[in-house]
C-alpha cells in the first residue's frame, strides 16, 4: 500500500503530524496576541500618563526616611539608595530567619520522635496550630499584642544578656572585639543601653517568621527522619552506637537526602513571606517600594524592581540549596 493512500483515509483532523503543528501555532498566536495586547495598552496608557519607562528618577533624592538601616541612609540620598537599604533590611531578616527557623524547626521535628509522650504531642499541636493560622495574622499578633505590650524602663523583661523592652530589644555583645570586652544591657537614666539594639518591629517580624516557618520545617524534618527505615536505627543500636551517634552517623546522612529539597522550598517561602514586614512596620524592600511608588507614581519600574529582587533572592537560595543537595545525595560509582 503506497503511503499516499494512508493519508487519504486519515482525515486531516486526525493527522498525527499535522495536529501538533496546528495546536502549537494556535497557542503561539494566542500568547502573542495577548502579550501584544497587554504591552500595547501598557505603552499607550503610560504615554498618556507621561510615565513611560525611565530610570532617571532613581537618582532623585528620596525625601523619606528608612528606619534602622545597616547602610547609612538619610532622606537626602537618592531613591536607589532607599531601595538598596530596604533590600539590605530584607536580607538581614531573611538570613536571621533562616537560621532561627532551621534550628527551632529541627528541634520541633525531632521532638516528635521523643520517648516523652507529652513532648511528642506538644510538637504535633504546635505544628497543627501554627500551620492553620495565616502568617499575616500571626505577625500583627506578635507586633501589636506581644511586642508593643512590653514594659519599659525598670519593669522591662530582663534575661541574662538580653532585655526586652517596648523601646527595643537589647542584646549583650562585644563592645570591643579586639580585647574581647563583653558588655551587657544596662539602664542609664531610665533608658536602656546595649551594644546591640534591635527594634520591636524587627523583633516581631523575626519572631513571626521563625515561629511560622519552623512549623513547616518541623514537618520536613519529621518526614525526612521517618523516611529512614526503622532497621537502620536497630542495626546501629545493635552495633553499639548510642542514640546521638546513631542520629549523627547513620540517620541524619540518610534523612538529609529527603530533608534538603523540602528545606529549599521552605527557605524560599520564608524569603517571600518576609515581604509581609509592612504589617509590623519594618522597613523592608516591599515597604520602601510602596512608599517610593506613592511618591513617584512609577508603578511599572517599582514592580519590576520588586519582582527582580525577589527572583534573585529565590535563585540564590535555590542555587545554594542545590549545591547542598548534591553534597548530601548518595554518591554512586
Amino acid at each position: 500500500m503506497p503511503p499516499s493512500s494512508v493519508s487519504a483515509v486519515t482525515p486531516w483532523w486526525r493527522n498525527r503530524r499535522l495536529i501538533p503543528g496546528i495546536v502549537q501555532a494556535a497557542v503561539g498566536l494566542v500568547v502573542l496576541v495577548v502579550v501584544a495586547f497587554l504591552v500595547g495598552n501598557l505603552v499607550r496608557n503610560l504615554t498618556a500618563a507621561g510615565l513611560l519607562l525611565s530610570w532617571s528618577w532613581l537618582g532623585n533624592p528620596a525625601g523619606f526616611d528608612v528606619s534602622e538601616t545597616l547602610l547609612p541612609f538619610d532622606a537626602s540620598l537618592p531613591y536607589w539608595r532607599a531601595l538598596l537599604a530596604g533590600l539590605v533590611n530584607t536580607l538581614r531578616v531573611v538570613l536571621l530567619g533562616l537560621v532561627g527557623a532551621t534550628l527551632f524547626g529541627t528541634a520541633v521535628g525531632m521532638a516528635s520522635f521523643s520517648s516523652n509522650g507529652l513532648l511528642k504531642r506538644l510538637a504535633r499541636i504546635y505544628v497543627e496550630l501554627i500551620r492553620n493560622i495565616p502568617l499575616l495574622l500571626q505577625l500583627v499578633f506578635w507586633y501589636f499584642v506581644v511586642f508593643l505590650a512590653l514594659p519599659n524602663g525598670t519593669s522591662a523583661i530582663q534575661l541574662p544578656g538580653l532585655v526586652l523592652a517596648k523601646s527595643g530589644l537589647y542584646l549583650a555583645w562585644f563592645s570591643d572585639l579586639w580585647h574581647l570586652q563583653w558588655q551587657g544591657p544596662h539602664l542609664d537614666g531610665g533608658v536602656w543601653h546595649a551594644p546591640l539594639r534591635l527594634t520591636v518591629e524587627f523583633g516581631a517580624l523575626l519572631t513571626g517568621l521563625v515561629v511560622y516557618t519552623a512549623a513547616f520545617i518541623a514537618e520536613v524534618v519529621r518526614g525526612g527522619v521517618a523516611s529512614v527505615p526503622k532497621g537502620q536505627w536497630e542495626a546501629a543500636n545493635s552495633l553499639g552506637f548510642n542514640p546521638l551517634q546513631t542520629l549523627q552517623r547513620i540517620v541524619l546522612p540518610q534523612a538529609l537526602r529527603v530533608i534538603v529539597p523540602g528545606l529549599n522550598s521552605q527557605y524560599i517561602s520564608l524569603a517571600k513571606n518576609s515581604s509581609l514586614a509592612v504589617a509590623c512596620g519594618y522597613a523592608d524592600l516591599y515597604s520602601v517600594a510602596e512608599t517610593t511608588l506613592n511618591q513617584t507614581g512609577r508603578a511599572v519600574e517599582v514592580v519590576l524592581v520588586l519582582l527582580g529582587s525577589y527572583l534573585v533572592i529565590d535563585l540564590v537560595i535555590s542555587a545554594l540549596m542545590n549545591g547542598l543537595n548534591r553534597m548530601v545525595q548518595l554518591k554512586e560509582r
Partner: protein
Amino acid sequence: MRTALPSSPLQRLRRELFSSPLDGLISIGLIGFLLAVAIALVKWALFQAQWAVLQANSTLFAVGRYPLEQQWRLWLLTTLLVGATGLSWGLLRGLPRLDRVDQLWPRNDRIAVAVVLALAVLAPLFLKLSLAIQLRWWLEAALLVATRWAAGRWALRIPPPARRLVPLIWPLLYFAGMVLISGGLGLIQVSPSEWGGLLLTLVESSFAILLCFPLGILLALGRRSELPLLRWSSVVYIEFIRGAPLITLLFLGQNILGFLLPGGLAPDRVWRAAWVLTFFAAAYVAEAVRAGLASLPKGQLEAARSLGLPLPQALIHVVLPQALRVALPATVGQFISLLQDTTLLSLIGLLDLLGTARTVMANPAFLGRNAEVYLVLALLFWCGCAALGLGSRALETRLNPTANPAR
C-alpha cells in the same frame, strides 16, 4: 522480643511521661509551663479581656458595610446554603454504599450536630446579638438538623434520577449566591466596595478556589505536554508566579492592571484582587497536579491511547482521575493557604476579616483591644483551615482504591 506493654491508664501515663529520669524532668517542666499558660489565658479571658469590641462590631466583622435594608438577601443565602448542606449530608448517610456499614447517625455526625447546636446557642449569647437575630441563628441550626434528619430518613424514597440531580444544586446555588450578594436580576446592586468582613473573605476565597483548580490542571497538563511552545509558556508562567511574593502580585494588580487593559475594562479593586489570587493559586495548584501526573506510570496514557481513545478522552477518563487522587492532599493544602492568603487583602486596603479588624482597632473607643480581636480571628481561621484539612483526609480515604475495594 517484645514485652507486653502495661495498659492501665496510670501505667500508660507513667510509661509516656516518666519512663526515665530525664523524661520525668521534661514532663514536669512542660506540665508546669502548660498550666501557667492555661491559667494566665483563663484569667485574661475572664477578667481582663473586654469583648465589647466584638459585640459592638459583629455586623461589621460578618458582612462589612453591606446595606442594612439589603441584608435579608444574605440571610436568604445562608438559609439556602444550610438547606443544601443538610440535604447533601443526609443523602450521603442515608443512601447505602458498598464501602461503609450503613449507619444513619455515625458518631462523627452526632458530634457535629452537637457542636452546631452548641454554637448556635452560645455564639449569639457571647456576641450579645439582639433577640431577633438570635432567633434567626436558632432557626438556621434547627433547619440544618431537620433537613439532615429528613434527607437521611427518606433518602431511599427519592427516585434515583432526582437523586442524581442533587449535586447540581451546588453550582446553581453558587451563581444564585453571587446574584444575591452583588445584585442584578431585579435586585438592587450592592457594589463590591460595600462588602467586607467574613463575607468578603468567603467570596474572594471561594471564587479563587473554584477557578484556580481547572486553571491549575490546564497549566499542569501544559507543562507536561510534548509541544514545546505549550510547555515553555506554562513553565514561564508557573515559575514567574512562584518566584514572586503574593503581596507584590497584588500590588501589581492594583497599580498596573489599569495600565494593561484598555480604559474602563479593568475590574474594580475587589475583583482585581480576586483574579490575582486565582492566577496566583493556579500556579501552585499546577505544581501539585503535576506531581500527581508524574506519579502515574506512563503506560496508563499509552494503554488508553492504544485502545483508541482520543487524547482529551484519555486524559479525562484515565489519567486525570488517578492523578488528581494522588494530588488531592497537596491541592487542598494549596486551598488552605489560599484561604489564609486572603488576609493579605488587608494590606492593599480591602476590608476582609483582617482589614476590618485593623479599621476597628483604629477607632479610639477600641484602642488596645488587639488581643481579643486577633485571637478570635485566629480561632476562626484555624477552624476553617482545619475543617478543610479534615474534609480532604475524609475524601482521601473515600477515594483510596485499596481501602474500600469494590465488592
